[in-house]
């Protein structure tokens, strides 16, 4: 299994931090409040290890969005939020509209797709800008599920071939903490393409 060097991990975290910063800025416009997102921590792991991180999370049921990105490297990107937190985000997005719980749930899929779309596009555009490449994204898909179904559903996961770049981010909206994960499922070739771009970037900056 490929391992990240200390500088690669640091650089990836910082590039995603820039993406997360852009996402927070966009989300704050959507919810009309300040949104604080912590600098992400990054782990490279196998799908089953990512699953156990999610199983170890506070909640078992998740609301998640997935979007396929293709270009210089291909990945399935998935922001994952505990279900109860997702509903809270949706409530803030609905704002002044006084919706019933039923209406909120109906609105949830659409709202979480939008939130996921904002977060992912901010992260991917940060990567694309820094690496000067183009990444094309599919439409975001929303679904609910538990830790296992989130990672494996609909993905051609071959244990020897797939890795997960796992970002853990804390988001604070109106003083409330929302603990989220962003998973990037890649095959080994895409991961080495991504690391190739990263190494080129570090070299261009005179850092490697």
């Amino acid at each position, binding site marked *: 299994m490929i391992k990240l060097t*200390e*500088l690669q991990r*640091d*650089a990836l*975290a*910082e590039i995603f*931090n*820039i*993406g*997360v*910063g*852009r996402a*927070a*800025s966009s989300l*704050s416009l959507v919810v009309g409040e*300040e*949104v*604080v*997102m*912590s*600098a992400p921590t990054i782990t490279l792991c196998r799908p089953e290890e990512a699953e156990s991180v999610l199983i170890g999370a506070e909640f078992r049921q998740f609301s998640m969005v997935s979007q396929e990105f293709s270009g210089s490297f291909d990945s399935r990107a998935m922001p994952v939020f505990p279900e109860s937190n997702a509903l809270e985000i949706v409530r803030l997005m609905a704002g002044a509209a006084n919706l019933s719980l039923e209406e909120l749930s109906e609105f949830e899929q659409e709202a979480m797709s939008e939130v996921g779309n904002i977060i992912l596009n901010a992260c991917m555009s*940060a990567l694309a*800008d*820094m690496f000067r490449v183009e990444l094309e994204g599919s439409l975001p898909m929303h679904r609910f599920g538990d830790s296992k179904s989130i990672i494996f559903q609909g993905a051609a996961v071959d244990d020897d071939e797939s890795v997960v770049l796992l970002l853990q981010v804390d988001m604070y909206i109106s003083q409330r903490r929302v603990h989220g994960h962003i998973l990037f499922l890649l095959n080994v070739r895409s991961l080495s393409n991504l690391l190739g771009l990263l190494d080129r970037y*570090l070299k261009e*900056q*005179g*850092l490697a």
Partner: protein
Amino acid sequence: MPNKTILIVDDSRMSRMLIRAMVAQLRPDWTIVEAVSGDDALAKVDELKPDFVSMDVNMPGIGGMEAAGRIRMHHPAIRIALCTANIQESIQQGAARNGLYFVKKPITEAGIAEMIAAFEG
């Protein structure tokens, strides 16, 4: 402007290296020191009394905004720039209210040149 000292505060090694390289190029006679967290920054400020501080915002432990506030309180002469990916209006306004410069990440040479000009202005 010789013999100035700048403290670069960032939990990301890449960011510290980038800022250091750009400052060294633009102001070769400045002394450059680094801190890896808000707490580390407070200790280094007390110890080294830098003229300028480049401060990241999102860091583990005490955040950059709080660290900058504490430095302002105890060392009002030190000029501080927030150098951050957190580009929300509220942060930019908070920076302006507290007399801090604001530099957007990603770090660029133009951004660092502006920060230096603001420090020297």
